[in-house]
């Protein structure tokens, strides 16, 4: 299945891809995401209405906070599932494999980087949870 490059699901794929991979996702990954949404979320005719997905789409700057909040809650949210689907299709594509495989050389400063990611993740979760509470969720 392929989808028009500017379809709502393709735009969603690019948004999630850029956020997760820090680069533009390959077209094949965008197509795979759209296919996956059809297979897993019953979105063959286009994206379902979902408050968190819609908010993330309208205001991409909030995506990191929403990602942090839904992960922390371990909630069965469509947004969380879509984020995981994008990770899965990106990881299963040679275009983005490097983002999921270990490095080839030892790199110093692992603990520092781990600490930074933990702090960033914790901060986003805190802010995201505040945002969800403000939304009454």
């Amino acid at each position, binding site marked *: 299945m392929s989808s028009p490059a500017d379809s709502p699901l393709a735009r969603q794929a690019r948004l999630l891809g850029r956020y997760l991979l820090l680069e533009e996702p390959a077209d094949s990954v965008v197509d795979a995401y759209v296919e996956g949404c059809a297979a897993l979320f019953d979105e063959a005719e286009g994206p379902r209405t979902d408050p968190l997905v819609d908010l993330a789409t309208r205001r991409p700057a909030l995506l990191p906070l929403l990602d942090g909040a839904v992960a922390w809650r371990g909630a069965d949210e469509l947004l969380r599932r879509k984020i995981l689907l994008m*990770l899965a299709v990106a990881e*299963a594509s040679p275009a983005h494999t490097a983002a999921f495989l270990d490095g080839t050389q*030892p790199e110093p400063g692992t603990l520092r980087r781990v600490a930074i990611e933990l702090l960033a*993740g914790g901060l986003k979760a805190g802010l995201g949870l505040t945002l969800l509470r403000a939304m009454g969720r």
Partner: protein
Amino acid sequence: MSALFDAIVVGSGPSGAWAADALVRGGAKTLLLDAGHVAPPSVDVPEEDFEALRRRDPDQRRYLLGDAFECVSFDNVRTGGQVTAPRRWVGALAPEATPIRSSTFRAMEGLAWGGLGAAWAAVAVPFDDHDLASAPLRRADLAEDLRAVCDRIGVSAGQDALTEALGDPGGLMPPLPSSPGTDAMLERYRRKQASLLGRGLVVGRPWLAALSEDRDGRRKHPLLDLDFYADVGRSVWRPPILLEALPELATERGLLVERFIQEADGVLRVEARATEGRRRRVFRTRRLILAAGALGSARIALRSLDPDASLPLACNRLRYAPCLDLRQLGRVHRGPRHSLSQALMLYRPPGQGAAVFAQVHAYRSLLLWKLVRESFLAARESRKLLLELNPAMTVLSMYQGHRPSDGQRLRLVDDVLHVDFPADPGADARAVANEDAFLALVRRLGWLPLRRVQAEAGASIHYAGTLAMSVDDRPLTTAPDGRLRGTSGVYVVDGSVLPELPAKPLTLTCMANARRVGRGVASGL
């Protein structure tokens, strides 16, 4: 009138294959009946190093996620979660052909050619007398068969404390190489061995039905790290390897045996239906060997002998514990490797039998996104974090024994198998205490358990106890020679006969017992 066989074996899994082997070699005219589902041809995985494949194969999504994204799951750890897209065919037919209803237990059956053995993780360890205490069977009764099975399938293992604890049946091959992180842990264990052994922790190289040397036309393990996706060079043993070496064995695939009827002349009438269409077939035999798995054999026995009865069901408890070895942080682990178990751990509290059995996996050839799914941090940070931690991360699959409680039973309702598997709070509390004690010892090896992940009931796919072996003459149990009580010529050779499951995988013991029973049946014909 259909031909009369000396023996019919139901099921082509590890137990059925070994029973058939013993019967044919004993001169019995034998027929093997099986659903015999085989892999569709579209899921072949190129035989290359997994990492190289990941970097170049544009079709990898098909075997990593599945054509219909069937391996993208957002639920908790599921039964068969380790069964990747190229192996999904193993369990594909069963939900429709042999449905199982339960709200508390997620069962998996394999109607594949080779049964669940077609997706076996290849950990092959024998039970000892303590493990067999609930059955009228001793390790010595199985010694000859264990040796023969190990010789034939090729079991690689180390010469270490674990092999000493498990008892070398003979014929073991040298071990496969382990990951560098596991090697470092094993070295730490060697330094502390006396103290840890005293506390009941035994650690060693894995016992794997995977060749470390070429044998009988099979190639030694190629170390391409493809084990979750393909069987390269047939280095990992699968039941069809044994069955194909038996030209005298008659086979009929595409059939599900439903029931047997004992006729007046001592002949058994075996009724089967086709897996596709409505065709029914009838076979006649002097002996019937049930090897359809603890659930499948129970279904046939209940239908044939007492459809209103219920049977106990044992199933190993399974929990996962991802562990971190801080000393491995920042290291680079490259080179040939495999994705089978890297080491095995056995926790035996002093004076007791196995309480926890753990398989050590390096989480490298499954996908990182599945670890992200388990993380409580945002996916973007989790990906980067887990990438940093991956070389230092291992996952322990922890199995514990199980004795069925009064309520943990299966029965037929309108000819469909129903499983009742209520929680057993007392046993659960003991299991948690065992796990706590075990993980405290794991910490002393420098591995920090990060969390524990509970797999759903049934997830271990180790089922037993339904037609338990017993010295008491009770209906729907088996005698020590494997004969199903209430019958004169029906024998059971799979996990059904084990009344309880110890904290060890059962496959090797089941294979040895199937060979033992098969030899006995052949000699009695």
